[in-house]
């Protein structure tokens, strides 16, 4: 009897995550879709002007903003991340490996507000000076700054996943390449890394997910102007920032438009999640 009751309790607990996903989807859609319909899907997604006071709710600038800073984060973060993970897996002397590995793991846990604060007090002035000296202007809060900061933030994610993908490649691949006369670098970059490709891509996609969903750090360095940007040293607002900045005082259609912004973000994230799990599945089969 007791056995059966407890089995029921365990089963009930296991349903919690299904319930949670169900509730999240339901409440986002129910609160977001009507607003989107009222504004008009085309006008909402394709509109270039966001002026809640005039009932103009176009989130194209925010979509573009999210895409820009994410692309920027990839440009900064991915090459450095992959090269660092190659270092960790194939170059790092054993004596310093443990401390470096621990450092990377710890850094992935630094709260995004702390990253954001660092961006605010270090990167923003730095970019302001660079922008001024290049004659490009801008006040330092810009696409470039946000990309730089997000690139830093996704490094631990990319390094962690990529390193384990590289380590999962059988040693015979590397040794075989050496036996055929390849150098260490040749073996690593032409044989091992291509063999670890699906894992590397999964790491990058995971990093993209982190970058596009990042909120607090981006708000603190991106400038948050809700318009299409005309240069990487200009400010921009992301989807995530739009929600946090205006939700505090939004009412009626404005509020619904913000929730709909969340729905758009959610769809982006779901697409990224699906591609990660597809990549993982392919990695396991191949």
């Amino acid at each position, binding site marked *: 009897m007791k056995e059966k009751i407890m089995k029921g309790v365990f089963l009930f607990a296991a349903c919690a*995550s299904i319930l949670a*996903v169900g509730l*999240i989807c339901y409440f986002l859609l129910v609160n977001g879709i009507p607003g989107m319909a009222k504004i008009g899907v085309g006008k909402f997604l394709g509109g270039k002007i966001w002026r809640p006071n005039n009932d103009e709710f176009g989130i194209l600038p925010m979509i573009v903003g999210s895409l820009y800073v994410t692309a920027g984060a990839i440009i900064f973060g991915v090459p450095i991340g992959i090269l*660092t993970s190659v270092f960790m897996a194939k170059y790092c002397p054993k004596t310093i490996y443990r401390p470096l590995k621990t450092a990377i793991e*710890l850094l992935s846990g630094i*709260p995004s507000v*702390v990253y954001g604060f660092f961006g605010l007090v270090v990167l923003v002035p730095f970019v302001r000076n660079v922008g001024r000296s290049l004659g490009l202007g801008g006040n330092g809060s810009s696409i470039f700054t946000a990309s730089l900061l997000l690139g830093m933030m996704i490094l631990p994610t990319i390094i962690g996943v990529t390193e384990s993908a590289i380590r999962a490649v059988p040693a015979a691949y590397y040794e075989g390449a050496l036996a055929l006369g390849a150098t260490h670098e040749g073996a690593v970059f032409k044989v091992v890394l291509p063999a670890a490709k699906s894992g590397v891509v999964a790491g990058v996609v995971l990093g993209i997910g982190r970058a596009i969903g990042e909120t607090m750090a981006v708000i603190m360095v991106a400038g948050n102007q809700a318009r299409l940007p005309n240069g990487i040293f200009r400010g921009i607002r992301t989807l995530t920032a739009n*929600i946090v900045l205006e939700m505090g005082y939004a009412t009626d259609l404005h509020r619904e438009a913000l929730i709909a912004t969340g729905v758009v973000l959610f769809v982006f994230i779901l697409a990224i999640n699906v591609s990660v799990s597809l990549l993982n599945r392919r990695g396991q089969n191949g």
Partner: protein
Amino acid sequence: MDNLKQKLSAYKKHPGSLVVMLLVMFASLITFLVLFFLVIYILAKGIPHLKPSLFSFTYTSENVSLMPALINTIIMTLLSLLIAVPFGIFSAIYLIEYASKKNKFVSIIRITTETLTGIPSIIYGLFGMLFFVTKLQWGFSILAGAFTLAIMILPLIMKTTEEALKSVPDSFREGSFGLGAGKLRTVFRIVLPSAIPGILAGIILAVGRIVGETAALIYTAGTVTKIPKGVMESGRTLAVHMYNLSSEGLYMDQAYATAVVLLVLVLGINTLSGFIAKKLTKERS
């Protein structure tokens, strides 16, 4: 020495390899320098501003005390764990000890857990606002924040508990059954106790996430700077406090100091988790 000479001559023959090697070294150097610089910079700028007035029990615009926020963080953490830990551990027990691997239901649970892992915290915050704050009419409150965070850390606790349960050798279970114990007794008396360090490491990791969380809390727990009288009142956690300080821009010195407290807290918590996990793997091998 000979080894080094060999390597150098090999690089002389293959200048391309040398370039690649230098790139790898350069990139790694950037990674570690940047990340260390961040930590050192915050510590160096913030530690001089750690004054006793920052830890006074009431917040005023004079002292900009972080103590209420720190206490709120502790309350928030305990409450979230209270909700998420039983659910997380029980569902892991179901997945590992009861359900058969090929079960359709199990694969649905896995998919939803993966989905929860990938959802950014602002979406959790939005959901918490729509459901707990508005629909259930809890208002901006510690309770709404705690429930929101509980959902956020649920997949993490499930995942780590599952790993911990999996690492318990089957011989333990067989021995227990052989001595006549039932399934339930085996789970609670034999399997769970041997999995505790792994579960604990996961819980501590979850604490680290709760302490660092901002976006999920602003519109669920709110930003009131006082210590709340009950769970139905609003209160800001340390990370939210940190965000407000730096976005207001009025109290930069205190913001640096708050960043130090937050950073040390999270790094300490994560180190503890890693330490426990490492101890576990050492004992097993």
